[in-house]
C-alpha cells in the first residue's frame, strides 16, 4: 500500500543536497590520504604529477565544465516548457560524459602501457611514494569515473522521462536533482584536476 502521492519540492531538494554532502565526504577520505602522503613524499608526488598528461586533463576539464553548463541550461529549458530543447541539452550532457570517459580511457591505457598501474612490477620497484601517488590517482579518477557513468545514466533516464512527458514544467524536481548530481561530479573533478595535474 502506498499513501497518496504528496509533493514537496523543497523537501526533495533538501534530501538531494544531503546526499550530495555524503558524496563529498566519500571523496574526502581520498583527499585526506592525498594530503597526508603528499606531506610525506613531496618529491615522488611531484615526479608522478609530471608524468600525467596535462593536455588531456585540461581538455577533460573543459568538457566537464561545458557539460555542467548544458545541464544547467536543461533545467531552465524544462522550466520554460521547452521539451525538445531540454532533451537536446540533456543529450549534449551525456555526449560530453562519453567524451570525458573516452579521454580517460586513452589516458589510463597509455599509463598502463608504460607499466604504471597498481601492483605493477615497475611501481613495486620504484620509490615507495610513487606507487602511493599512482594508486591514489587510479582510485580517485576511477571512483570519479564511476560517478560520471552513474550521472550520465541518470541524465539519460531523465531525458527519456522528459520525452514521455513525465517531467514537465510543473514537475521537474527529478531533472533538477539529477543536474545537481552532475554538478557534484563536476565539482569533484575541479578538485582532482589541480591536485593531480596542476599543482605538483
Amino acid at each position, binding site marked *: *500500500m*502506498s*499513501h497518496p502521492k*504528496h509533493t*514537496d519540492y*523543497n*523537501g526533495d531538494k*533538501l*534530501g538531494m543536497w*544531503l*546526499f550530495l*554532502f*555524503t*558524496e*563529498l*565526504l*566519500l*571523496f*574526502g*577520505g*581520498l583527499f*585526506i*590520504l592525498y594530503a*597526508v*602522503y603528499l606531506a*610525506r*613524499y613531496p618529491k*615522488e608526488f611531484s615526479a608522478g604529477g609530471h608524468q600525467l598528461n596535462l593536455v588531456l586533463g585540461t581538455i577533460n576539464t573543459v568538457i566537464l565544465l561545458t557539460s555542467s553548463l548544458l545541464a544547467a541550461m536543461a533545467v531552465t529549458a524544462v522550466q520554460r516548457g521547452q521539451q525538445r530543447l531540454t532533451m537536446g541539452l540533456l543529450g549534449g550532457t551525456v555526449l560530453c560524459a562519453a567524451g570525458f570517459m573516452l579521454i580517460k580511457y586513452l589516458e589510463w591505457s597509455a599509463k598502463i602501457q608504460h607499466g604504471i598501474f*597498481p*601492483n605493477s612490477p615497475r*611501481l*613495486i620497484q620504484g*620509490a*615507495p*611514494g610513487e*606507487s*602511493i601517488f599512482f*594508486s*591514489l590517482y*587510479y*582510485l580517485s579518477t576511477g*571512483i570519479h569515473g564511476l560517478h560520471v557513468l552513474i550521472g550520465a545514466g541518470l541524465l539519460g533516464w531523465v531525458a527519456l522521462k522528459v520525452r514521455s512527458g513525465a517531467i514537465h514544467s510543473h514537475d521537474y524536481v527529478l531533472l533538477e536533482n539529477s543536474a545537481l548530481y552532475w554538478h557534484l561530479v563536476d565539482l569533484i573533478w575541479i578538485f582532482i584536476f589541480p591536485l593531480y595535474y596542476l599543482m605538483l
Partner: protein
Amino acid sequence: MTTAPPDNFWNDTGRTGISSWIFSTDHKRIGLLYFYSVLTFFLVGVALGLLLRIELMAPGRTIMGPQTYNALFTVHGVVMIFLFILPGFPGAFGNLVMPIQIGARDVAFPRLNLFSWWLYLAGAVIILVSLFTGGGAPDTGWTFYVPFSTRTGTNVSLAVVGVFILGFSAILTGVNFVTTIHRLRAEGMTWTRLPLFTWSLYATAWVQILATPILAITLVLIFSERVLGTGLFDPSRGGDPIMFQHLFWIYSHPAVYIMILPAMGIISDIIPVFSRKPIFGYKMIAFSSLAIAAAGSLVWGHHMFTSGMSDNAVLVFSFLTFIVAIPSAIKVFNWVSTLYKGSISLEAPMLFALSFILLFSIGGLTGLILGAAATDVHVHDTHFVVGHFHYVMFGGTGFAFFAAMHYWLPKFYGRTYSQRGAIVAWALMFVGFNVLYFSMKVLGMKGMPRRYYDYLPEFTTLNLVSTIGSWILAIGLLIMLMNLFRGLFRGTPFTGNPWGGATLEWSIPTPPPTENFIEEPVVTHGPYDFTGTGRP
C-alpha cells in the same frame, strides 16, 4: 476509549500476502520489517556470543580451535554491530514511531525508505554468503584492521562489500529522516515540542549522513588493497597502516553515537511517562544530543592510543574524549531529576529504562578509564574493553531496545503481554548481564587479553562465572521474547492510552490507521504535558 477501528494498517487493502509487506511503502510496515530482521540477527549474534562464552568456560580448547574462535568473534561483532545495533533503532522504532510523533502521514521519501530496507537485506545476505564461500568466514575482528585484513586468506573482500551496502542503506535512512523532520512536522509541532526520541533520531541521522561515507571509502580501500594491490596501507610500498585506523575510527567512533543516541531518546520518552512528571531540562537533553553528535565526531583517536600515533595527538584526543562525558552526564542527571518526586510506576518498559541508566553509567564511567591515555595503556585490548562496550551497547542500547519493544509494540499490535512475565524476564536478564560482563571487566583489569580462545589458568574461576552469567542472561532473554510475542499475538487487548503518554502516537487509535491520523493533527501542547492524558 476507541476499540480497534476496522481500517488499521494491518488489514489495509491493496496488495495481499507477503508482497503487501516487502513492497509496502508504509513506514509502519517497513518499521516492522526492520524490527523482525534486526531481531533475527540479534538472536543469531546472541547464539554466537554464547558459543564464544562456552569456549572460554575453561582454559585450553573447549569446543573450538583458535581459527574457529577468531571467525566466530568476528562474525559475532559484525552481526551485532552492522546488522543489529546500527540499523536497529532508526530502522525499526524510528520508522514505526517517528512519523507519528511529528504528526506526519509517512516519511519524506517512502519509496527510498523501502529501498533502504532492501539494501539492508542485500548487505546482510552478502555478509552471510561471505561466511561460507571463498576462504571461509572473516577472522579479522569487526574492525578489519590492516595489515591482517589485507593478507588473510579468509573472505574479507566479500564481507566488506556487504558492509558497504549496509552503509549505503544507513545513509539513505539518514537523509530520509533529516528531511522528514525538517519538512513534515504537523502544524504546531515546533522544534521545542518535538518528542525527545525524535530529537535523538534527528541527531543520529546527521551522524549517519556525515560519518558513514568515510566508512564507505575505507571499505573500498580495503577491497582495492586486496583485489588490486594498491598498497596504500602497506609500509613496504610507502603506505601507512595507521592511516587505516584513522579512517576507520573517523567513522566508527561517531557510529557509537548512532548506536547510543536513539537509545537515550527512548529513555527520555519513557522516564517522564512512568514518573508522571514532565521531563526535567527538555532543552538541555535535546541540545546535548546534538552536542554528543558534534563532539563525538572529534574523538576517534582514543581508540588508537597504543597505535604509535604522536603523543600530542594522544593528549588532544584524550582531552576531547572527556568533553563528550559532559553532555552524556547532562542526560543522566536530567533523567534522575525527572524521577525525583515523581510518582513512579514500575512496569516493564520503566524497569528496562531504569536499568539502562545504571548500566549505561557503568559503561560510560569505564569508558573514561579507557579515555584517559595513562590507564588505557594498561587495559587496552583486554577483556576490560569487552566488558566496557557490552555495558554500553548491550546494557545501554540493547536494554533500551527492549524497553522500546515493551513500550511501543502493544500500540501497534493492539494486544499486550503479561507484566509479571516481563518483570521476571527483566530480573533474570539484569542479573545475568552483570554476572557476565562485570566478571569480564575484572578479568581485563587482571590482564586477560581479548580475542584469544585460550587463557592462563589463574583466570579460570571468573571465566566460568562469566559463562554461567551468559546462560542466565540467555534464559531471561528467551522468557522475555516468549512472553512478549505471546502477548502481542494472543494477549489481552491493548487500547487507548494505558501508559498515559502525551506524545502524538498515543492520541491515535490502536492499532494505528494506515494514514496514521484520521484528521490532520494540530499540536497545542508539549510532548511531556500530561494534563488530560487519562492516567491517574
